[in-house]
């Protein structure tokens, strides 16, 4: 499965400044492994030492936060858009 991954500003040092890159994998975990194979070091920024998504990073497949789906096991169908975005919020 080939997917498109949007890269946040603070990770573009790993992608040579690219804001969007291609990756392959049937699940989010596989996509992140593929990113690591091409952009060494990026996996350690997205996942913590236990291999879980870092607390302050949100990852979306399509428009859905993977925490509402199957987290790292979320399927990434061919042509899917994956977005990695720092967690911020407004409100009080």
């Amino acid at each position: 499965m080939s997917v498109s991954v949007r890269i946040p500003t603070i990770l573009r040092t790993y992608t040579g400044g690219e804001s969007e890159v291609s990756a392959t994998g049937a699940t989010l975990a596989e996509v992140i492994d593929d990113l690591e194979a091409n952009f060494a070091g990026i996996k350690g920024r997205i996942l913590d030492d236990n291999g879980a998504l870092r607390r302050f990073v949100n990852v979306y497949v399509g428009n859905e936060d993977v925490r509402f789906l199957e987290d790292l096991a979320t399927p990434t169908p061919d042509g899917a858009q994956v977005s990695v975005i720092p967690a911020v919020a407004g409100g009080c």
Partner: protein
Amino acid sequence: MSAVVSESTQVATPAHELRDGAFGHATGLSCRECGHQVALGPHYACPECFGPLEIAYDFPAVTREEIEAGPANIWRYKALLPVPSDIESSPNMEPGFTRLLKADNLGRALGIDNLWVKDDSTNPTNSFKDRVVACALSAAREFGSKVFACPSTGNLANAVAAAGARAGIKTVVFIPSNLEKPKQINSAIYTDSLVAVNGNYDDVNKLASEIAGEEDGWAFVNVNVRPYYAEGSKTLGYEIAEQLGWRLPDQIVIPVASGSQLTKVHKAFQELIELGLVEDKPYKVYGAQATGCSPVSVAYKAGVDAIRPVKPDTIAKSLAIGNPADGIYVLDVCRQTGGAVEDITDDEVRDAIVLLARTEGVFTETAGGTTVGVLKKLVETGQLDTSLETVVINTGHGLKTLDAVADVVGARATIEPNYAAFRDSGIV
């Protein structure tokens, strides 16, 4: 963890040259999670761990007298904010120094001996958001930003649109398309670039974060200039302490959406103690959520540290943030101070709006209704000591959320225009 300055990963300062003292006594940005240091710039996420960046300061000695001699707005505290010393010379909305009401009638109704309402509905666009936006606007100016923007549940959009108009900078504000009509109008009146997004706040926030990463020269107040913006909430804490005669309350109840306001009021209290401006004393901080979006309250009650995101479903739309970025810090503050996080139903929110209006003459929005309603529940469940001095924060004006109470209040009687009909109505 100790602070680590890593040259290899340090985010560069913006191309725009910063003038001396552009950020007052701020010395840089520091990751709240890992302590990583980043130079001042339009950055909000730690390049090491994605943790939130906060302003680090080297505070000067400040006296009560110096503050009291300042203007009757948030700039009286400018020495403690990331703003230049000449901040008053630039057009701004001059928010703050809102009234602290002694709420004896509400206190009697709830059985609280000594109760105050900090009423932020009297800010220029009728919510506390004018405070944070004023600080964000200062940062945007200093960074040379061309566009002033935000994702918002309404109040922030109002404040950004108005402040941008006053400052003569282009604004673009993004809101969920199902937002209350009055809040939409209150933004659209100030800007021709109100963008309604089909989705909830978290969807709007995601979009804004993506745009912030792509568009140069955009200052999203609560995204890429968030560290500066968030500091504006400290002024609520400063004012409460000053208005109480330079002392801290025993208990304070604060609404929780992202959790930023609650953590910043606590930070303000701690700074006042450290600066010797108030006596060091214990105080309890309580967080208020609506049950239809209460991920922090749920985590508090479950005794866990992780916040599980939710899909919001509540009339308290300004609190409807399902994935609160500062939620874990709210848990820390409330637990460490001996407070709590509580939530109430939408019906209880409506009842509390009416209660505050009919006891104190203050018409609050749904977020304020949530806060007052949670105060009531904290009393009823024995979680709040009714003998201690208590402050409850009203974040915004009820005219913005009229729909929420439109069906629960109205004419008690409709009569013919004669005295007999009035007598028959049963009003007296």
